[in-house]
């Protein structure tokens, strides 16, 4: 048997109350792509953090090139040729792309950074692997797709031979995913090995050589991807059959719930982000906004929610003008919001689950009376929601920050849906969820639809959009450029408009699709 490049043996890692890795073993051969699959909280990230020197395991050993190694810090992992792109990016937001990439091993003389050389080096590797970015852009101005490129470039710049990608596709459009896969294949051709964590089974099949499946902290199965299919993987993962495409009744549109009329919104940099958008959502309807991130969806949602002041136009909820309402009034009027960034807007990581569960409802009965909490009701509600939404947590009293990404998302969903809203705005509601959880969330959204709620879905996932939406609005550069009815369009059709195609142009504009830069 060929010697493996990296081998993890019997890794065990314990967090207070959680056995995150239970004697996990994993091998990675040279030039191999291994997919690591598993439910939310299965311990994938933890295992990779151990390999990268961010966590130290209670027991187990790590071999690189057949040698026993003791990886105590990321520096040692880097020295061993291991690079990692984290589930939550490790980028310093106020710094530039170039600074983030070279940080730690800057080209310099006497401690003075040679910025031209740094820029050259960044451009060189970005060209070599086809990962184009503007080296002088600040991270916080970049859409996530580009931020991820920066993360990959960081690893490559450090001469990684083994690349760990923790849920790299969760935030990408199909187009971006295709590009990423091309990059990954070219990396493998260059001799790199890749560990690829994802929840998307078709991706696993299309990119990985081998699949390792984890559940509850342990490896429960391993297979060559050629020998399985998505249903088989799903079964291995959640231990039962999974329905990928939920069935839904035909739309029966009732009264108009949400009406957006010629809305114009500016972003932080005062550039027009939403440029005269109009649409309606009616009772029992799912309207999806499809678009590459950074095309104004965030600003659109924030201005509907009352988090951002629109320049002009109107927003009406059941005919009532809420254009200038603040978030509290919007919520009170019956709008729920699953934000796209759960760490920033979705939850308070330093709050425990009971507290996170009442955010936004914390002033309302039965949770609070006269400004005083009814702890009993809160605890009961939390316990019920944890149960209903299958949040994997040792208790309701742990801090939000200790949950795995997927479980955090479930908390947000449980809270927002639990409010029983008139209108649900769900932005990337299944980002980072495992297939089982996605199935559950989708069916919950359709339950809401059946109850006659209006749903505005913002998603990059065309599969999600196709399976849930009654109407699809494609947003590009702040405008709705195309509207499709359910089942009317193929993924390719939608992708075409998402990336700047128009009815008058026949081909997809290649440069536009390379990632989105707004106003630059």
């Amino acid at each position, binding site marked *: 048997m060929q010697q493996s490049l990296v081998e993890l043996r019997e890794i065990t890692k314990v967090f207070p109350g959680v056995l995150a890795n239970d004697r996990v073993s994993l091998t990675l051969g040279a030039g191999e792509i291994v997919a690591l699959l598993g439910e939310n909280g299965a311990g994938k990230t933890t295992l990779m953090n151990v390999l990268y020197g961010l966590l130290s395991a209670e027991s187990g050993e790590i071999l690189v090139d057949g040698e026993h190694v003791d990886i105590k810090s990321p520096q040692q992992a880097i020295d061993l040729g291991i690079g990692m792109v984290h589930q939550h990016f490790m980028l310093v937001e106020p710094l530039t792309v170039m600074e983030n990439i070279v940080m730690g091993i800057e080209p310099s003389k006497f401690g003075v950074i040679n910025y031209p050389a740094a820029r050259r080096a960044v451009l060189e590797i970005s060209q070599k692997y086809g990962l184009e970015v503007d080296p002088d852009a600040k991270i916080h101005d970049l859409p996530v797709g580009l931020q991820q490129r920066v993360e990959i470039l960081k690893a490559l710049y450090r001469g990684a031979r083994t690349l760990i990608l923790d849920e790299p596709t969760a935030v990408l459009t199909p187009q971006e995913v295709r590009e990423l896969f091309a990059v990954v294949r070219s990396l493998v051709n260059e001799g790199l090995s890749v560990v690829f964590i994802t929840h998307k089974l078709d991706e696993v099949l299309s990119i990985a050589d081998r699949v390792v499946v984890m559940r509850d902290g342990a490896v429960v199965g391993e297979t060559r991807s050629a020998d399985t299919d998505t249903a088989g993987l799903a079964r291995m993962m959640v231990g039962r059959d999974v329905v990928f495409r939920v069935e839904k009744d035909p739309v029966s549109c009732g009264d108009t719930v949400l009406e957006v009329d010629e809305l114009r919104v500016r972003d932080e940099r005062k550039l027009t982000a939403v440029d005269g958008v109009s649409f309606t959502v009616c009772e029992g309807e799912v309207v999806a906004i499809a678009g590459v991130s950074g095309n104004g969806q965030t600003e659109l949602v924030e201005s509907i929610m009352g988090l951002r002041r629109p320049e002009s136009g109107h927003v009406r909820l059941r005919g009532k003008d809420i254009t200038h309402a603040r978030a509290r009034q919007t919520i009170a009027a019956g709008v729920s919001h699953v934000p796209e960034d759960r760490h920033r807007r979705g939850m308070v990581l330093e709050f425990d689950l009971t507290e996170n569960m009442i955010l*936004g409802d914390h002033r309302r009965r039965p949770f609070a009376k006269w400004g005083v909490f009814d702890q009993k009701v809160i605890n009961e509600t939390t316990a019920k929601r944890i149960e209903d939404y299958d949040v994997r947590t040792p208790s309701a009293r742990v801090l939000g920050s200790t949950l795995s990404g997927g479980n955090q998302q479930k908390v947000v969903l449980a809270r927002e849906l639990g409010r029983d809203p008139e209108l649900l705005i769900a932005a990337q509601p299944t980002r980072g969820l495992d297939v089982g959880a996605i199935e559950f969330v989708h069916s919950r959204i359709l339950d809401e639809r059946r109850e006659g709620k209006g749903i505005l879905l913002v998603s990059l996932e065309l599969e999600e959009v196709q399976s849930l939406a009654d109407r699809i609005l494609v947003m590009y550069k702040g405008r709705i450029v195309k509207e499709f009815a359910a089942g009317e369009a193929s993924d390719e059709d939608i992708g075409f408009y998402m990336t700047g195609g128009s009815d008058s142009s026949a081909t997809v504009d290649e440069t536009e699709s390379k990632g989105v830069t707004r106003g630059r």
Partner: protein
Amino acid sequence: MAGKEAKRMGDRLAVAAENVGIPFISVLIAIAIASVIIWIAGFDPVAAFSALWKGAFGSGRQIGETMLRATPLMFTGLAVAYGFRAGLFNIGAEGQLFMGGLAAAYLGIVLAGLPAPLNIAIMLVAGAAVGAAWAFIPALLKAKVGAHEVITTMMFTYIGRYLVSWLVTGPLKAEGQIPQTEKLPLESTLPRLHEVFAFFPDSRAHMGFIIAIVLAVVVWWILKYTTLGFEARAVGFNPWASENSGISVSATTVKALCISGALAGLAGVTEVMGVHGRLFDQFSSGFGFTGIAVALLAKNNPIGVIFAAILFGALSSGSGTMQLEADVPSKLIFIIQALIIFLVAAEQLAKWIVGRTRKGVTESA
């Protein structure tokens, strides 16, 4: 099953022992290090620390003295802690304290003649309001233009101090050469504890101590069980998520800093009403600043503030005895105080030592 239960009980006991033990061990380490310093400096460490203990807790009177000194620190500690919980660093509690004191000194004279309970109630409320008012402009500036509260509250401290300095030498000055306000009439002062509770030994400790404890519990309750406290903490941790949940970040900021200011103002009120009976330029020994350390030592937990303030109060009241009986220079006492604060704050060190000994115990068992 039973074994599991027992183990859990054992774990709980270990955690409990750790929570009580850590501060205790920290203090012990601090005493050990300080003893070395005292000894090197040529004094008797045993005499020094027994004097410190005696001065702090040696008699009912001394305990009262410790309580007296803990009182303003509880208020300022609560003030700073409340601010921190809302993500605000109220470094200017000292200024709010001065303004609270000013309000009490003024009202105490104006209200003379009213029945004492009414008088006292009005003064407490008004002093808190004035403290809040002194925090209001920094709060507003923070909420509206983002001016950093560390700068603004500190600047307002200096402004408040000079304002008081002028008032006590000018418009509000009592007869005579001394820059101070008129002595408050009896009905405008806080009774001493021994005047209210017969069992309490004769000391200077006053009702401010009880008010502070009650407020600590109230603040703890507010933070834990009310929407007011919930919103403050939410904004303190994550303003974006708060905003998304319909919490007004600016309104919450203003409210939190004003509550903080009110608590600090009460420190001034109770010092004037309970200790000095009047206002003068130097009536606070930096209580607003020490309150920062008190708050953080208590990890911003209002109940913890009570204990942290008592620790500081004890160090303060024990130092006089230490100076007199063990001849330790007053300056050395600062060093000892600093050491104790250090070690109590750096619980990691004590934890490490506890861990070591526990490991040793289990291994030998």
